[in-house]
């Protein structure tokens, strides 16, 4: 892999093309999928940090999120079974500690079938960056309920609304001992890139939850509109932590908190 063709300002669209196997495009993502925005944000963070792409390993699982790095990134990528990217990544990091290991998984992947790996990697504070592309649904298998689907939301397997409560992934991972925890949506692109940069340089277990739009499976069933309306949905729904601290529980009802939940001083 050579980045010699790199041109343009760091973090620019032009600049990040060098990290992509453009011959594999177009991507598998549906129109309006937030995962493409996350893909761009991650590459911008890497480019702005001037990380050595050749010393990075991207581990992904099964689900739409698995496609963010594999096969599109012109880097070492490891595509694992459903739920297992963190366990595979743990092995890779132990065998080759000089690797910068990045896990990209979905909410179904990391919080459901692979939930155990998530909390235990956080508990061990093993040095890796785990990005959870949370679209609140199993997108690739056709829109079934996941552990992060909001109560009452409609999915293929909850046609009368989800009766269960969702995980707050940031609280879960923070509780398990992660030393960097942040949440943003694909609408909040600049703070998201900043958080990814912090996570990528964090000397411990770093977790970034990225709320990602799935107009095809989630948006359609919950009448959230098309791609642009779904981005505005994040804008409306999300509330920065600092603001939330000054608000009452009633005012916070139905809001999603964004920001850094755990960060080194």
């Amino acid at each position: 892999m050579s980045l010699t063709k790199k041109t343009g300002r760091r973090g620019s669209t032009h600049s990040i093309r060098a990290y992509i196997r453009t011959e594999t495009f177009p991507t598998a993502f549906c129109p309006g999928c937030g995962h493409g925005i996350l893909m761009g944000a991650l590459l911008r963070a890497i480019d702005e940090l001037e990380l050595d792409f050749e010393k990075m390993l991207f581990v992904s699982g099964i689900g739409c999120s698995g496609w963010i790095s594999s096969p599109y990134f012109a880097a070492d990528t490891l595509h694992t079974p459903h739920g297992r990217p963190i366990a595979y990544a743990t092995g890779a990091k132990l065998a080759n500690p000089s690797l910068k290991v990045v896990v990209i998984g979905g909410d179904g992947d990391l919080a459901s079938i692979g939930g155990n790996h998530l909390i235990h990697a956080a508990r061990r504070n093993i040095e890796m960056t785990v990005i959870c592309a949370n679209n609140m649904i199993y997108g690739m298998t056709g829109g079934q309920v996941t552990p992060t689907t909001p109560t009452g939301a409609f999915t293929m397997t909850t046609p009368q609304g989800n009766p269960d409560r969702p995980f707050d992934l940031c609280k879960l991972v923070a509780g398990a001992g992660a030393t960097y925890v942040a949440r943003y949506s694909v609408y909040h692109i600049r703070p998201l890139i900043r958080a990814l940069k912090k996570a990528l340089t964090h000397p411990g277990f770093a977790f970034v939850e990225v709320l990602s739009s799935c107009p095809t499976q989630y948006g359609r069933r919950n009448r959230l509109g098309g791609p642009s309306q779904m981005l505005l949905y994040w804008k409306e729904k999300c509330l920065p932590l600092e603001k939330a601290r000054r608000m009452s529980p009633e005012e916070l009802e139905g809001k999603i908190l964004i920001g850094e939940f755990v960060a080194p001083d």
Partner: protein
Amino acid sequence: MAKQIVKALDGAAAVAEAMRQIDPDVVAAYPITPQTAIVQTFSQFVADGLVGTEFIPVESEHAAMSACVGAAAAGGRVMTATAANGLALMWEVVYIAASMRLPIVMSVVNRALSAPLNIHCDHSDSMGARDSGWIQIFSENPQEAYDNTIQAIRIAEHPDVLLPVMSMQDGFITGHGVERVEVLEDQAVKDFIGEYTPKYSLLDIDNPKTFGAWAFYDYYFEFKRQQTEALSKVPKVVEEVGQEYGKLTGRYYGLFDPFEMDDAEIAIVVLSSAAGTARTVVRKLRKEGVKIGLLKPRLYRPFPGKEIVELLKDVKVVGVMDRSIAFGSIEGCGPLYLDICASFFTYGNGKAPKVVDYIFGLGGRDILPEQIEGMVRELIHIAETGEVKQVVGYLGLR
């Protein structure tokens, strides 16, 4: 014969329809392509109140089979569905379900195991579970998938059996292929399967039971011997249930489905949807005067070796078609080939036809009639010369 309604259903919808009519007490499942279509269709039935089932979309297949074991031990009629890596993840509990003699019925929509990642059909998933103690039944098309799901309940819950059943169909080819399916009326299915009254169950407060307790070198062996004994009762039950189902529907089922086997000198043995393709080839070659027949096993575990040898003993050459590889086995053959060979060794009285194996269709690779015809030409050559050049061949390999 009972009244039936003709519907256009794919294999997944046909199984979901059967599940609606069976109305199991508990369904626990996790989404995996190409099985998902079964459970999401069924979850709509749950939401619409068409069934009384407690449905739980759990956090993994391991959890799904675990919940099924719990529910079945508590006396429920329990069903689930999975495919490929989902079945692989269930592994530990798949064995436990059989060992605890719990009559769970699981629909498996056959799909290739990773790696590399693949979502299309082959039989590597359920073949891996062939020694797990489950009864395994393979279906050729959506009609058989529907029929076998209903019969599976009766087979599993039969007092001589009490074992879980895996009912297979080919991923996408059958699972997502819409065909004409004759569906029974709900009451006819309910009458056919009857009420389930478990002989032993948890939550029977006056007679507490223990499931899955310790048994070391003192009793473990006896448990396993009993399991084998239970499996030996299965073929008779499968045939009885198949006959009774035939009286109801006009579609009679046995251990296998022979076609043009009476005077055949050459036989093809193949499971599931590829049998349909092979049947067209047999029909064509019969017109050309080739004495060829087809044997499609339906019950794969327990393997009806004696009956299959009886049917194949007078042919000159058997061409087995395997949709998976039993890696590391002789010549890298498939599992069906191993079973056929072992059956002749055991029941053939020292006589056996030439048996060769053809691996085909891995990871969803198409199998074409021309490829099967090419295979038959090789089989004819073996019949004429008695010479086997290679034991394991590959159809459609690039």
